[in-house]
């Protein structure tokens, strides 16, 4: 339904740039919905993605939250995974070799329980070949220590950013939470502290109750809401932040189709990430990229960057 007839012959450029890194197209996976890449390889050609973004890494292996971790909501998904991951060392040994040989730039997402853990993660990963940028997750609603706490107080967000910047020469993308009164305050604070790009939004805090048991539907009680349900909130956040800061923005939140991508770019995103859509349809990333190719062709757009922030007010 969403696919536009391609105009024969016309081929607009889909290339964009984020923090000095060139992406062949603006579409990448959202952290935590892509495993470590291999799981999707049977379904799509990972080399066609704009970038590769892997599940949040912590310094030590993290077991994650007790199940149930998933609860479906109307056009949305509540999750409380709790950053389950093998830890940075095992990642470097077991996962990185595979990821390194993929063509798209690799962005590694990190989260610490303390500012010094963020710094340590940054320094540990900076030395590794094949990593093109770090995405700093200060917005996970599902862990007790760290996570979202750093993302809601502008000063703390700035401190995390500065600490990471100090340890790495890699571009630093800071991932913001929408669960704040004014997201532009946090955005400005992290940009002032050196963030090279911003990623937004992470999930909205949410909850569901199972009527049969009268217990929370999630083992962790609360979770993060993602998927089409949150798209309007995400688009608003991107639009607000794009007008408040000068660094490029990776927009995300409920993107399911190429049309959604275009809305995010018009609102001010330079690139986008696709999360929940991949969980529903493992081919979503590629179908979205193809949809984007069709769209720029049909509209006679020479350079997709024309769309960035081009909403008419």
């Amino acid at each position: 339904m969403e696919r536009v007839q391609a105009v024969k012959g016309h081929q607009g450029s889909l290339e964009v740039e984020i923090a000095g890194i060139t992406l062949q197209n603006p579409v990448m996976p959202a952290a935590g919905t892509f495993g470590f890449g291999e799981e999707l390889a049977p379904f799509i050609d990972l080399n066609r993605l704009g970038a590769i973004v892997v599940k949040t890494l912590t310094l030590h292996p993290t077991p994650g939250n007790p199940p149930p971790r998933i609860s479906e909501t109307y056009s949305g998904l509540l999750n409380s995974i709790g950053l389950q991951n093998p830890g940075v060392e095992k990642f470097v040994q077991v996962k990185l070799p595979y990821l390194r040989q993929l063509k798209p730039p690799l962005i590694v997402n990190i989260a610490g329980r303390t500012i010094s853990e963020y710094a340590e993660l940054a320094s540990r990963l900076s030395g590794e070949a094949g990593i093109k940028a770090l995405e700093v997750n200060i917005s996970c609603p599902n862990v007790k220590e760290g996570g979202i706490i750093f993302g809601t107080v502008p000063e703390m967000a700035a401190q995390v950013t500065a600490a990471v910047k100090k340890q790495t020469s890699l571009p630093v993308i800071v991932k913001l939470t929408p669960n704040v009164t004014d997201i532009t305050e946090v955005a400005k604070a992290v940009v002032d502290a050196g963030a090279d790009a911003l990623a937004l939004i992470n999930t909205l805090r949410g909850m569901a109750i199972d009527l049969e048991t009268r217990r929370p539907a999630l083992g962790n009680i609360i979770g993060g809401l993602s998927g089409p349900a949150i798209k309007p909130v995400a688009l608003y956040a991107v639009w607000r932040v794009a007008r408040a800061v000068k660094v490029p923005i990776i927009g995300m939140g409920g993107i399911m189709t190429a049309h959604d991508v275009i809305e995010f770019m018009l609102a001010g995103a330079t690139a986008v990430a696709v999360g929940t859509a991949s969980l529903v349809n493992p081919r979503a990333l590629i179908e979205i990229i193809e949809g984007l190719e069709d769209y720029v062709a049909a509209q006679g757009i020479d350079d997709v960057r024309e769309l960035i922030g081009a909403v008419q007010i």
Partner: protein
Amino acid sequence: MKLLTEILEAVVLASSQIRPDIYLLSLEAPTISRDARPGQFVHIRCSHTYDPLLRRPLSIHDIGSKGELVLLFQAKGRGTAWLAGQQAGNRINVLGPVGQGFSIVANKKVAIVAGGLGVVPLLFLARKLLESDNEVNFFLGAQDCDKLLRLEALRRMEVNLFLATDDGSAGFKGTVTDLWKKHLRPGAFDWAYACGPQAEMAEFARLAERVALPAEVSLEERMACGIGLCRGCVTAVCDASGHKKYENVCSCGPVFNAAAVCWED
């Protein structure tokens, strides 16, 4: 296994309501039928819009004589209600086969313990175990005789069939694990498989462990992706040293070694 998983628009061949809330659905899904192993499941979109959003996991119940993929499901909520409304000729988006199936042994005496809807993956398992020349003892239990599913199909197969009902309206009066327990002497079986309510599977695992019988169970957990991307579907498993960790039910399971599952959770 992963390379065999496909996403396809399967055509509904037939759909029938075999109990007030239970449906039998045949789909044309040749690649899935070809590659499916007992215990694996398919992951189905139950909407053409974003509500319901997630796929629904359904075990592979059988592969029909013409290669059709047969599913057996209970219409429980919004997704399965949609599926129950699909008619012959409609197309359904199916991802599969997914997951790790049961071990197919050969020339053994095996016990299959099915509680309620637990029969779903176990019928296909019985068929495959028969093909590998096993002696198949099939223990089928339900609340009452009306809820014993696929009785006729099982009777047509070369299995030793044992029935249990909670109310005694057919076969043994009690749970299917209680019935199985009565047949469970050391050496009675070489291998055992179960699927059913959590409590019965826990009991099954305990009983099997007591006689050191290799045993496998098929677990259920809420799922998003079904293919290992999200870590949403975990269950706690213990390694040999009792060390507990969370493993994906979708990609490491749904079939697990019964002894490895942390049943207390």
